[in-house]
């Protein structure tokens, strides 16, 4: 693990400017070429309540927001009341001592009360207390003031020189106050310039869409997926992407299917409740064999649930979406960068197989923000549209065009409407090869059977289109941590922590859920004496799904379903507990009161 690993937390009420402090810090770190990851534990409330942003930076890639806090910035009394108890010796707590009383301070925690009234360069500007705190935090973290100056100048320049001056002065005052009273955290701060891009998972999904050639994006706002819509709305017009807000999620998916049928790559995103409304449309896309990509950014359910909290609770909803049997693709990106990468990948699969494809991500990585390797952003993606006919041959040479032609691999050449020679009807009813319905007058059990099998055969070639999961760590470790989707980072870090504690483990993270590389997975798991499945839900949705495909039963389970993400120590504690063999389920308790 890296030498330099700094964790800062900022807490306060919604509307107090927490995100802006976080953005400044992230920008400063990322500009230095450090890796950053930020996670905001917030509430479904516009003003007030409690928001708690964790930002972690390191010279190694940061994959989780970690277990501990080095510097806690409290913007209100509530924050210090909730979080001070969790600080360990050597860490700092920063707050406005005119307004906030620290109460009982854990041993060794350094209390950095700032006399904000005295330090603020303009008493009427309430936000200066945030700037002062940022200055102090930066000193304590071992940085110098220059990058903060740059950042504030950039941020406030359009508000005029006075505002810039009062912010710079206040930042300096906070920085100086800290310097006069404390010594900063030990350790050299690496300099890895040039800087790194900072992005949220939602923005990465949207940008991945742009890279994949999405030309039609439509959505209905729903947390935590709304960010994709906002990015698309901001950038679509310049990029030639039509972006439409629709009246509901049923309209969203059916509109996207209409656009996809016309020949564009169409995408939409929602969360679990919106996805529920889309399920009928998923079956429609399957029956008409229209490729379409639907993103479900999971939040804590059931029902409206906890809209601003994370969970991996929708896997079975995706597996079972819509009536009947049909091919579907489900992929769960494993981190922010993967959100970008996955979209062009899945569009190619969807286009080749002509079926609905679903991206299953969650609030943790979609609303999480972090640095990514700029090499991730590839703009010359291979776009493979499969057997798509987009130009007219005047009239189709070899006999009549059969939209649903029965082929060995189940894939039938797909012509877009408007071409001479390829007239056909795409119907939600069962149809014959020539797209004539066999649901009415022409029902025919043999044809029906053949069409079901034709569609089903498409899945046979699906596995070859996607990579099998790869084990991290030694195959002989004896213990495998098995996760899926967004938990990759936390499991990777937990494994490192376990190894540091003398517990050998390897780690397998599943990204492609359907099709599942069952044989490859079993080949890996069969080498382990113990397998623990870790997931962010109550019922073990992945464990149950894996079992349905492979009969595999894990030796232990770590499950968390309180709305907050798993932290590395939850996994470490869980693994140690499970290794005792007294129980097969470990449910961590979330210590941080957010």
């Amino acid at each position: 693990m890296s030498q330099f690993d700094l964790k800062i937390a900022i807490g306060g009420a919604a509307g107090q400017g927490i995100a802006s402090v976080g953005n400044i810090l992230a920008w400063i770190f990322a500009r230095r070429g450090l890796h950053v990851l930020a996670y905001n534990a917030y509430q479904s409330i516009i003003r007030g309540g409690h928001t708690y942003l964790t930002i972690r930076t390191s010279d190694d890639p940061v994959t989780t927001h970690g277990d501990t806090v080095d510097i806690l910035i409290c913007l209100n009394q509530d924050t210090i009341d909730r979080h001070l108890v969790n600080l360990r010796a050597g860490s700092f707590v920063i707050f406005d001592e005119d307004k906030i009383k620290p109460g009982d301070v854990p041993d060794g925690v350094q209390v950095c009360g700032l006399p904000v009234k005295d330090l603020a360069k303009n008493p009427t500007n309430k936000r200066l207390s945030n700037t002062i705190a940022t200055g102090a935090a930066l000193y304590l973290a071992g940085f110098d003031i220059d990058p903060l100056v740059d950042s504030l100048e950039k941020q406030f320049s359009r508000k005029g020189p006075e505002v810039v001056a009062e912010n710079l002065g206040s930042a300096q005052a906070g920085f100086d106050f800290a310097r006069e009273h404390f010594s900063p955290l030990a350790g050299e701060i690496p300099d890895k310039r040039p800087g790194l891009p900072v992005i949220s998972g939602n923005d990465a999904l949207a940008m991945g869409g742009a890279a994949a050639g999405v030309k039609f994006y439509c959505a209905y706002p729903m947390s935590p997926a709304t960010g994709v819509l906002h990015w698309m709305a901001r950038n679509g017009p310049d990029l030639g992407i039509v972006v439409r807000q629709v009246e509901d999620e049923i309209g969203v998916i059916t509109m996207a299917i209409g656009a996809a049928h016309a020949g564009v790559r169409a995408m939409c995103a929602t969360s679990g409740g919106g996805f529920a409304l889309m399920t009928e449309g998923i079956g429609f896309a399957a029956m008409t064999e229209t490729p379409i990509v639907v993103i479900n950014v999971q939040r804590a359910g059931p029902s409206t649930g906890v809209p601003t909290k994370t969970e991996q609770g929708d896997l079975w909803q995706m597996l079972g979406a819509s009536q009947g049997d049909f091919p579907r693709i489900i992929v769960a990106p494993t981190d922010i960068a993967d959100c970008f990468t996955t979209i062009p990948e899945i569009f190619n699969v969807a286009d080749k197989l002509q079926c609905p494809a679903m991206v299953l991500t969650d609030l943790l990585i979609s609303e999480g923000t972090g640095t990514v390797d700029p090499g991730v952003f590839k703009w010359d993606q291979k776009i493979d549209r499969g057997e798509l006919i987009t130009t007219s041959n005047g009239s189709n040479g070899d006999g009549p065009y059969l939209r649903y032609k029965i082929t060995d691999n189940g894939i039938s050449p797909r012509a877009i409407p408007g071409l001479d020679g390829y007239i056909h009807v795409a119907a939600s009813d069962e149809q014959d090869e020539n797209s004539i319905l066999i649901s009415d007058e022409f029902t025919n059990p043999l044809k029906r059977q053949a069409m079901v099998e034709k569609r089903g055969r498409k899945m046979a070639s699906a596995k070859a289109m996607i990579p099998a999961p790869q084990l991290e760590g030694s195959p002989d470790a004896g213990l495998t941590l098995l996760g899926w989707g967004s938990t990759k980072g936390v499991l990777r870090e937990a494994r490192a922590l376990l190894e540091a504690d003398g517990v050998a483990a390897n780690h397998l993270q599943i990204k492609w859920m359907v099709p599942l590389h069952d044989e490859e997975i079993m080949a890996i798991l069969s080498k382990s004496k113990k397998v623990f499945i870790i997931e962010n839900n109550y019922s073990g949705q992945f464990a149950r799904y894996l079992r349905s495909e492979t009969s595999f039963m894990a030796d232990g389970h770590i499950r968390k379903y309180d709305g907050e993400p798993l932290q590395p120590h939850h996994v470490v504690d869980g693994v140690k507990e499970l290794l005792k063999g007294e129980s097969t389920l470990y449910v961590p308790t979330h210590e941080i009161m957010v």
Partner: protein
Amino acid sequence: MAAVTTAERPTITAKDFQGPVDPDWCPGCGDFGVLNSLKKTLAELGKAPHEVITVSGIGCSSNLPGFIHTYGMHTLHGRSIPVATGLQLANHDLTVVVTGGDGDGYGIGVGHLIHAMRRNVNLLYIVMNNEIYGLTTGQTSPTSLIGMQTKSNPEGNLDMPLNPLAMAISGGATWVGRGFSGEPKQLGQLMKAGMEHNGFSLLDVFSPCVTYNKDQTYPFFKERVKKLEDNGHDPSDWRQALEKAFTWSDEEIPIGLFFENRDRPALHETEPVLRKGGPLALRPLGISPKQGQALVDKLM
């Protein structure tokens, strides 16, 4: 898509739109008249079959795309309008005709209809309004009159019927008409005007269900319908249009063009990406590395 000018084209007749199978509607069903008028109108407008797409929901009436030789999409119950919107925006060179029933469009699908009218998507929506659910063998529809006895309301319908024309006129539709499948000539004229209108056109059609609706039959309408154009109605007069939309009596049930607003642009003419350039579906995919780099630069 080869650009063929109308001049070079072979003459197109209704026969060119002859579908691959004969309709399986009950003999005498009003929907036959709608299908025939549609084929004739498309031919009259000189459309080639591949330039047209008919989109429908689910219902007897929604089976129409299977009975006509054009591109077609036979969607889900109540969802023809958003599907057609996606199609039209993705390829605004297509002539988009949506066909369906009163249950499909005014019942389960009415939310989409309301919003599509606000958006002025360029398409013609033909609703074969038989005041009943035909395909599911005769239940109350949103346009069934109070007191009508159906399988789902043997004691008589209690709900006030929905007035599609009033809803459309007050809801911002830019072209609103009503035809009757027993008046094929006027019906054809209305379809033509609706397709030529640039924006959302709602054409409600009395299309009797001879099997399940024993109240609103051919004779019922024959005796009552009065053509608006015979009575000096001015379709640009919004108030008069609304007045006519509420006219329903044994003496007069108006049919014809109720309302037209030629001033509002269609959605694809105002949408930032579509207002310049050809159909989206024919544009090159992806974005340039330069555009991409600019997006990444913004993140630094």
